[in-house]
């Protein structure tokens, strides 16, 4: 009988502890998944497969020096233990070649964390039958990704964390014959066919609006509503070093003027890293317990994400951030705008469902550019007039979420990461929509 992922991790840990020499310290990370991937195009299966993968990440510390090795695990206990010994050997050969690391900082607490969420997923045949029944006449394109994900962490100081969750993420678009499209997603840990059908119905409703005659806009300044999925793209840009202690200390953060007090956002804006209750592991890749943090409070920069290394380098207190100091569960506090009132409050302007491909045109000024994508509508006097083809915006965060921010919605969406680079990601964001008085379109 094959070992479970947790048994596999514990066997490795046992081997590592037995092999450790006096003076050596370690951290051992573990990551595994069994994934079912089904790609759709034209509501048919374009590509399907299963992926079984596991890896360990060993950091060896000795005499003030450290190095890391990641290695793939094959599931054969003897072979995996040999790979662990090989990694240990390489790291032991490496450490003497290094200078003492002045920023080496280890969390020496013996924390314990255990999270196990094991709901059953549907058989892929059930998902396929549902798509066939409910979407056969639609031009549906996207991916269904599902299966268990495991993350583990242990240290020579006695810390031990285990996170195991079964989840699914069905991310799809419906295309109108005119090329316009609406995006939808159904993700979580407990599959409910009725909930999927309801999401599909809502997307289908929006699709009808996409058939209206298109509206051509010229570059200029427009009143706009940004739906939570569009806000997620903006939030994603801020996660790209915005809150990082290292980036803030070295001129590489888009929020450096906010955190220096030279600029501020609207008092409506309060952003936190809300790890508790999220789908992310309760521990960081560095082996610290994550913390809930208030990053922006009523428009002013407050806490930043501080890894152990940054703490040592910039003389700050570490607060459980990952080594790359990016939020894993970003939460923007809700406002008071009722969902039912969005079109009426927008009046005349753009209803933007999604944004796409954002990047900075001037990073220190938090000026970013990007494009509308999926179901962007022109609204006049609270009525949808028709879809707007792709438009580019170029504006600063201090405008969009600063002086031009009029309201945030009272309802928020929990958006689970669809990213599958290397492995299925566990990040999420919890965001309201935003009504802005003016947004600059340039192309």
């Amino acid at each position, binding site marked *: 009988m094959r070992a479970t992922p947790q048994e596999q991790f514990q066997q490795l840990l046992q081997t590592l502890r037995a092999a450790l020499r006096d003076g050596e310290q370690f951290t051992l990370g573990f990551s595994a998944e069994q994934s079912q991937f089904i790609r759709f195009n034209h509501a048919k299966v374009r590509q399907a497969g299963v992926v079984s993968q596991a890896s360990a990440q060993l950091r060896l510390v000795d005499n003030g020096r450290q190095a890391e090795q990641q290695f793939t695990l094959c599931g054969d206990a003897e072979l995996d233990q040999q790979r662990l010994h090989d990694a240990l050997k390489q790291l032991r050969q490496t450490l003497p*070649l290094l200078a003492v690391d002045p920023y080496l900082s280890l969390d020496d607490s013996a924390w314990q964390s255990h999270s196990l969420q094991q709901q059953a997923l549907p058989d892929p045949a059930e998902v396929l039958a549902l798509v066939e029944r409910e979407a056969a006449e639609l031009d549906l394109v996207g991916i269904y990704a599902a299966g268990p994900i495991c993350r583990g962490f242990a240290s020579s100081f006695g810390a031990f964390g285990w996170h195991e969750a079964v989840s699914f993420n069905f991310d799809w678009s419906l295309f109108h014959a005119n090329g316009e499209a609406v995006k939808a997603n159904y993700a979580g840990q407990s599959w409910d066919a009725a909930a999927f059908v309801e999401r599909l119905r809502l997307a289908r409703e929006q699709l009808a609006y996409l058939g209206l005659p298109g509206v051509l806009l010229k570059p200029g300044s427009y009143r706009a509503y940004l739906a939570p999925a569009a806000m997620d793209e903006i939030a994603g840009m801020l996660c790209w070093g915005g809150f990082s202690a290292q980036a803030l200390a070295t001129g590489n953060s888009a929020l450096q003027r906010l955190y220096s007090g*030279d600029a501020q956002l609207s008092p409506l804006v309060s952003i936190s890293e809300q790890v508790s209750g999220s789908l992310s592991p309760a521990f960081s890749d560095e082996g610290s317990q994550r913390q809930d943090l208030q990053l922006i409070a009523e428009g002013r920069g407050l806490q930043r994400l501080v890894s152990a290394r940054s703490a040592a380098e910039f003389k700050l207190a570490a607060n459980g951030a990952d080594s790359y100091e990016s939020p894993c569960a970003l939460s923007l506090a809700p406002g008071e705008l009722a969902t039912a009132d969005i079109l009426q409050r927008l009046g005349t302007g753009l209803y933007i469902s999604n944004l796409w491909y954002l990047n900075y045109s001037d990073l220190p000024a938090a000026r970013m550019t990007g494009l509308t994508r999926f179901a962007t509508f022109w609204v006049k006097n609270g009525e949808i007039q028709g879809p707007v083809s792709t438009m580019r915006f170029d504006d600063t965060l201090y405008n969009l979420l600063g002086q031009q921010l009029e309201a945030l919605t009272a309802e928020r969406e929990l958006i689970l990461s669809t990213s599958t680079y290397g492995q299925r990601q566990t990040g999420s964001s919890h965001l309201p929509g935003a009504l802005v008085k003016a947004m600059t379109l340039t192309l």
Partner: protein
Amino acid sequence: MFDSSALLRQRFAALRSTAEVFSLRHVKQSYQGLAVRRNVAQPPFFNQDEGAMLTVRINGVEAYAATADLSQSGLQRALEQAEALARQIARHSLLDLSTQAVPSERHDHVSPNFIQPLPNLADCLGLLAAESASVPTDNRLVDWQASLGISEVEQTYLNSAGAELRHAQRFLFPGMGVTASDGQDSQSRSLGRDNFGQQGGFEIIERCGLIGAATQVADQALQLLLAPNTPSGKRDLLLMPDQMMLQIHESIGHPLEMDRILGDERNYAGTSFVKASDFGQLQYGSNLLNVTFDPTIAEELASYSHDDDGTAASKQFLIRQGRLLRPLGGALSQFRSGLDGVANSRACSWNRAPIDRMANLNIEPGEQSLAQLIGGIEQGILMRTNRSWSIDDARNKFQFGCEWGQLIEDGQLKGVVKNPNYRGISAQFWRDLSAVGDRSTFEVLGTPNCGKGEPNQVVRVGHASPACVFSQIDVFGGDA
């Protein structure tokens, strides 16, 4: 090299399958990442990864299973998983591949200087530390880093038709970056990093120019901090190769990917403003535009003999004298579309299936020296080194930004400007190509970070280009 071959061959031969065709793609790769930041060596990072993807075709329907368990039973189990899945999806499958040809070639491809030993880790760190230490002392220089990534990949493709295709490749990614800040504004200048990588040995570090570069990179970061913003308006735009690569990548490479045109990527990476009917018809750019898929430049990142589906790779013109000729479509896309394509079906590793990707996508050199290119511009701007990229999902409306700008007036290079950005529309932009640099301006570059696909994949792509001039482009600066 190819130490696993005999065992893989033996285990593949022992697999039992009811599929009409099945294949195994084994990938073994290692990575070593070194960096010295602000004169402190960062913890070295190593990676060892190995696994295989088994793909089956049953009644014209394909499915895959990927596993790191390379034992006989592990491979057999994965094969059977793929078979079960192929049967499960049969009724829902978009494609019937019953008549698609199956490769049967046998060939080995090895990177140049693959077996040449590289300097040891201590020497590499010493080199990076020396560069880091060469950054001058100046309070405004707040961050700098010298780095070197080394990746070795061995891949073996075997199939039931008798194909055996092996690749052994080594990739180096040297880089240097410096950030200058005055507390309000910050400006960065870099060499290499995401804009440079090649196949081969230590000669790549010399070709990159990393050794001895720190002083100049730091000086340029400081120059940018003091420079005025790029003025707004229409100007002739001279793009150097380390921005041309991004321009080629986003507004020629992605729109020509056949799987986008066929709709596979519409939910994620996007579609294309190019239609299947445009091939052979569309005037994509001016007569000066010659674009090739070229796997024959040995040091370029995506030079290979066969792609990951086993199709033999050869140099092909995608665009000749501005006319669009063929897409970036591998064997499957060619089968689906009926168009001639190239060997660009690629996967990032053993755990992802091949899809249409860019590989080496180059612009052929023209006839003008850099001095002639500059001399031919009355009012213009030179931009180099990409730092920002954004383009719509049909790969048409773009806005790109560079680290370094220099105005050109009356045929002469003038002052440095910061935050050089420009925007345009792909369908028009290449028709504004007015001059192409000669071989003396031609550089072989590439990036390790091209993302696409569901599930997501990042692959290495090569771009070689001369410097090029575009007429009357909308340029602008930043807010600072």
